[in-house]
């Protein structure tokens, strides 16, 4: 049986946040008498993550995903509840715990700006007490996986965002952590760089059985990496389970694009009782229920003179968009 590596029980976090009225009067009032109120950003959440799992945290901006991630890696003290990560209480930040984890943030960097990444790698290696020979071996292995080589010897400020992110990953993984916290790692990267990063993370997970907790606004990151998702809505968990089950539940239909031989056939199909999404000349898109896809296809093939057809799922972004604004999912 695979053991739990992360165990979160009844976790809550409140922050004191100051608010300011608009205008000069508001600014002066804010300067002399700051109004602060306590806001509960995480509300009594519980979940477990098994060793080797890749879990995606989904939620709108400000839903609390990053706060959860930061509590899991020990940067923020929880207000209530308990967290165990790899058998440690994260906020104590014990050396043994810190050597097991890593945090990668897409919008922040730890590499030394004026120097080539290789210098930051050796600095990190000395902090994690990795000897020179072993460091060299690990750099070689990781740079092969990440497909970087010469870039490690060029000052960080001259690297592209994609090359910089790869170097950041290398710096964050030099100590071979087995729990990875990734906060929007593909932010700002082009499609190819995003794909390469995902490929690397999948490979790293397969080879090392590392547990990965990921937040991302790029749905492709979530769908191609995570079997399980935890949806966070306004500080609470609205769904925790398999991604494909959620998608099935939220997307009970398929779109069939039918290319008819003539416009006459298309008009005939339009009037045959199917739910029509749109029609242009001899192309027509119909919407069918998931459980009636086969029978609908049979009907189309037998009764209409068609040239080609395509079956499509509704765009994933559209479905996920619906998840982000809903409070609860019972599946």
């Amino acid at each position, binding site marked *: 049986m695979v053991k739990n590596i992360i165990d979160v029980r009844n976790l809550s976090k409140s*922050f004191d946040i100051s608010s300011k009225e608009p205008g000069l009067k508001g600014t002066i009032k804010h300067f002399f008498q700051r109004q602060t109120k306590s806001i509960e950003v995480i509300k009594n959440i519980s979940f477990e993550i098994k060793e080797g799992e890749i879990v995606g945290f989904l939620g709108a901006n400000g839903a609390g995903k*990053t706060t959860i991630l*930061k509590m899991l*890696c*020990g*940067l*923020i*003290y929880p207000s209530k509840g308990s967290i165990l990560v790899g058998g440690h209480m994260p906020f104590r*930040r014990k*050396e043994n715990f*810190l*050597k097991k*984890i*890593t*945090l990668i*943030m897409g*919008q*922040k*960097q*730890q590499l*030394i*700006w*004026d*120097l080539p990444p290789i*210098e*930051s790698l*050796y*600095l*990190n290696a*000395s*902090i*994690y*007490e990795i000897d020179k020979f072993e460091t060299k071996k690990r750099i070689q292995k990781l740079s092969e996986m990440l497909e970087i080589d010469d870039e490690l010897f060029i*000052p960080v400020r001259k690297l592209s965002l994609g090359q910089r992110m790869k170097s950041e990953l290398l710096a964050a993984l030099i100590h071979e952590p087995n729990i990875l916290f990734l*906060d*929007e790692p593909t932010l700002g990267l082009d499609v190819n760089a995003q794909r390469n990063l995902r490929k690397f993370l999948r490979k790293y997970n397969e080879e090392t059985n590392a547990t990965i907790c990921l937040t991302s606004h790029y749905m492709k990151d979530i769908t191609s990496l995570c079997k399980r998702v935890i949806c966070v809505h306004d500080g609470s968990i609205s769904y925790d389970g398999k991604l494909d089950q959620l998608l099935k539940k939220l997307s009970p239909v398929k779109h069939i694009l039918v290319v008819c031989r003539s416009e006459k056939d298309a008009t005939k199909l339009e009037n045959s009782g199917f739910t029509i999404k749109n029609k242009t000349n001899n192309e027509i898109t119909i919407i069918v229920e998931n459980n009636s896809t086969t029978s609908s296809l049979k009907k189309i093939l037998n009764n209409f003179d068609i040239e080609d057809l395509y079956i499509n799922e509704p765009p994933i972004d559209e479905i996920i968009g619906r998840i982000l604004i809903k409070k609860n999912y019972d599946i």
Partner: protein
Amino acid sequence: MSLKKHIKVYKKFLHTSLASELEYKTNILIDLITAILSLLGSIFLLSIFFQNNGSIGDWEFGEALIIQGIYTILNGITNTWFNPNLSEIVKHIREGTLDFVLLKPIDSQFYISLKKITPSGILEIILGFCLLIYCIKINQINLNLSFLTLFLITIACSICILYSLWFFISTTTIWFVKTWNATEVLRSFLYIGRFPLNSFSFSLRIFFSVFIPIAFITTIPSEVFLGFSQLWKILLEVIVAMVFLFSSRKFWLFALKFYSSASS
């Protein structure tokens, strides 16, 4: 906390920091020229003060130069280590990159206090020592082991007090986010350390001894240098340095509990 590991990491800090600085040669050159001009300017200012009066607060010009020498050494240390590192704390907290420091298996205070170095400050330290050697000559001071030991102890204490004050102010960034002005105020107070404590009125002397111990920082090592310091003053400086160092450590650990990290 293993000493061997920290020495090894510090060597890496030195290496990466020097390599970063050497990327910008002109900047280093300008900093070096500034250090020389700053010292010459200070000595000129001091000589104007002593032009009409032979002494200020019982201190002759040659003796006051010792304070200037010690001030120059401490200012060099500030520019070499405190300024580049502790001003970075403000940046770390505002931008949320303190997260990376806190997640490293190394003491966070060690990391943020010593990661960077500005090599041009080292010239100031050298110039300060040169000035002190000149002072030994003009004040006809006898060098012996006890003199050197006491002098080094008081200088070390001064460095500890200065570091603690600087670190204390930088730590408050965790609550106030932007406290850069406060470190500038401290810097301005340090300028006062170029003059003998006796040259100020009684109330100012109390202020600079009790509230902001600038007096301890330069005057006591200078008195030791001249051989007329009393033992109780040296002991007091050692105690003040230890209390400051200990408090700054405790304050940092306390402040970290309130660190909320910047939003993404």
